[in-house]
């Protein structure tokens, strides 16, 4: 038995003694190149918004009782005719002082190119006429966009009058798609509308013509209102804007360095009730070299909703879009000084039919971020 015990002791001792060094790790030669690249996903933003949330009703944006949207531009005292105006220019004729009707949208319109067609705009002259004699108004309307212009045919109308000198008679005259090519002019997207014209007294005054004695209390004042109902169609209307490269890391070192990202993905899902589709592209631009370095495209960011025969949305359209910014993209971020955003918009049917915009249209969207940072542990 002693032998057995001794054998056990020997076996244990052997196991302990025979223990050997399997590997040697020289910590001083530990690689500096350590990093982690976890993938984190989080829902970032969401929203369920109607047009009313984005554009409140006001002087320019109005909604009818049926929620139909109309843009309204007004300018008072566009036409002011005094009897002396007739005397100044000559018997029976007065000049409507030329002026511009600024729509105040130059900043936006400068970035827009492409085809859009407003089907049913209207331009209304609202006047108060105190001339006893009938007047004929010849008004010339021109849309001006930069160096381009588009003319309407002369608008000739006769303001209603009381027939009694000095007694105001209110009235209005409207031009629209039935009596003019106003839709073409508005769809031209003018920065301003230039107006001018002449006024004629018909028939000539019975006495004192040219003296003005009996005309001195007679006048006409008029304002102008441009109504653009949002009944429209567009195809690849493009809005482009250039911003400073906000992704570029600062020199102070505390900004996030975009090169540290292996991946930044934006997943966007939208349920679009608007009959308007949007595509987006984002380009890194080197202004020194005048070169686009990288472009990210998000076609069909929003697909337009289907519309009924009246052009009203009949159902919403679901879209899912992924915008992926890869390491390749981030490697160019610090070389670009500008980012060019380009939106392309088309109405339902690719602009082949009119659509109508109502305030109760909604869009429900969610955007999630998937981030794969390269966490450098060096």
């Amino acid at each position, binding site marked *: *038995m*002693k032998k*057995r*015990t001794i054998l*056990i*002791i020997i*076996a*244990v001792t052997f*196991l*302990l003694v*025979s*223990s*050997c*060094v*399997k*590997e*040697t*790790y*020289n*910590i*001083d*030669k*530990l*690689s*500096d*190149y*350590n*990093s*982690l*690249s*976890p*993938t*984190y*996903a*989080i*829902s*970032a*933003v*969401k*929203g*369920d*918004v109607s047009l009313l*949330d*984005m554009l*409140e009703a006001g002087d320019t944006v109005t909604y009818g009782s049926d929620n139909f949207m109309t843009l309204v531009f007004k300018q008072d005292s566009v036409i002011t005719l005094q009897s002396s105006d007739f005397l100044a220019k000559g018997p029976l004729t007065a000049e409507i002082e030329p002026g511009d009707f600024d729509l105040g949208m130059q900043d936006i319109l400068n970035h827009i190119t492409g085809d859009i067609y407003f089907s049913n705009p209207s331009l209304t002259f609202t006047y108060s006429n105190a001339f006893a004699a009938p007047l004929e108004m010849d008004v010339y309307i021109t849309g001006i966009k930069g160096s381009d212009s588009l003319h309407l045919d002369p608008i000739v109308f006769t303001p209603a009058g009381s027939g009694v000198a000095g007694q105001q008679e209110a009235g209005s005259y409207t031009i629209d798609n039935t009596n003019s090519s106003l839709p073409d002019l508005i769809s031209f997207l003018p920065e301003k509308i230039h107006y001018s014209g002449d006024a004629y007294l018909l028939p000539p005054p019975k006495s004192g013509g040219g003296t003005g004695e009996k005309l001195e209390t007679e006048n006409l004042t008029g304002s102008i209102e441009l109504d653009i109902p949002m009944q429209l169609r567009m195809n690849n209307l493009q809005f482009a804007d250039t911003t400073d490269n906000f992704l570029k890391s600062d020199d102070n070192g505390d900004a996030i360095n975009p090169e540290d990202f292996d991946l930044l993905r934006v*997943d966007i*899902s939208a349920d679009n009730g608007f009959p308007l589709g949007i595509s987006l592209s984002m380009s890194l631009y080197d202004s020194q070299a005048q070169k686009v370095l990288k472009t990210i495209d998000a076609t069909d960011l929003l697909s337009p909703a289907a519309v009924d025969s009246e052009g009203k949305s009949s159902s919403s359209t679901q879209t899912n879009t992924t915008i992926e910014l890869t390491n390749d993209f981030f490697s160019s971020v610090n070389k670009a000084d500008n980012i060019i955003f380009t939106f392309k918009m088309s109405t339902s049917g690719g602009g082949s039919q009119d659509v109508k915009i109502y305030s109760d249209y909604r869009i429900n969207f*969610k*955007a*999630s*971020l*998937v981030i*794969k940072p390269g966490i*450098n*542990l*060096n």
Partner: protein
Amino acid sequence: MKVKTRYILIIVLTLIITDVSAQNSQVGYFMNLPQNHMLNPALRPSNSVYVGLPGISGINMNINNNYVNFSDILMNDQASDSVFSFMHTGNNNATVNSFLSKIKDRNFIEPEIMTQLLGVGFAVGENSYFFLDINERAEGNFVIPGDLFRVALSGNESFVGSTIDLSSLRASMMYYHEIGLGFSRNFTDKLRIGVKGKLLFGVGTMKLENRALGITVNDDYSHSLAGDLTFDVSAPVKIYTSNENIIDSVNFDDNSIDAGYLSGTGNLGLGLDIGATYDLTDRITLSAAVTDLGFIKWKNDVSNVSLRSQFDFSGLDMLDVINGTKTLDELGTEMADSLKNSVNIKNSSKSFTTFLPSAVTLGGSYTLNRYLTFGLLSYTRFIGKQVREALTMSANASLGNVLSASLSYTMTNHRYDNLGAGLAVRAGWAQFYVMTDRIPVTWNRIKSDNSDIILPASWNTINLRLGMNLVFGNRVKTKKDKPMVTVQ
């Protein structure tokens, strides 16, 4: 090597080189050791008197983990003679994924330190044995959910459609003095029963109770957080909360740690060990014990923080930004406030109770002859709702009361390659012993300019226990067997 990498590696290594099973050594159960009564108070050594002195009667070291080994953390590049970590750049996360494949759903870290300040045992007559222990004990129980590693190293995208399950997150630490007085006696020729009562004096504790904690990641990447936690502390720690019930600060008053504090008796507790052995036949002995039944009532320097939260985040609602009533910054601030407000924190100072991690030991031995005994031992430990099981088979040799040796095989911790050994040798009144539950066969050398460390290649179970007892009145158990041949 840069500081950041060192720092991370140190954290990882610290998490891993820690005892997970923390059980008492199974190897010594069938050996002739005075300390065996800690596993079963019915066990007694062959000597009549033993004295265990502070610092030398027992040093117990456990290094154990249930998930990775050194080679999963650091790897040698044979081609370049360099060393790289599992976070090495440029291998498409292969090493990180390999590391994560070793991670369990529940990764236990249960350090336990016990130092015997004084141990005395003596026999009274043939049948009775009395013993007294004064021990310093510190126990910890940490469970790190595997999902915590996975989300930290791989992110949350892989959890889409499921829950980042942190419900297994646990943390508790407890440091206390133990004074135990025990007694064992042969009640019949075959039955021996032992019992040990313990008076416990708590020094400090920390306990995180987790009733629910998880983050559900939905298909649209929205997140739902649900948490229900309680954090109890008995230590010179003050937790301050603001009027909004947000934890403002946590202050640790290290000036109050003095001899008076360490010897305080404000946190009293009781414990009990009870055990029995039964000689089924002359050769077969059965034994059973329940140890560490007990509790400590913590009353001194108590702070309780309970936290409940249910928070859903599905993205910032841009409606207010779009209609111009708020800015994006304001939305972000609101979201952070909502998260804070969703956390219902209550701060109080109510006494609380912690229970000792009790254990059940079942053993059986077969005595082949006076030199050799085979043993089978089941050791089950209950740590809260967690159960740890170890099953040990051993061959135990004794040469009178001079030498006692054991060779064991233990299945524990989902490992089936634990070969252990123990050896106790008496020289006069001095008994030396050494034992290990797992014999490290291979080692790794960690070299640096300033140091050269040898570590076992496998960390799953490393246990070393050694010490010296003063033993007196040594005797050899008289066999009751009648000689088969009597010479007149």
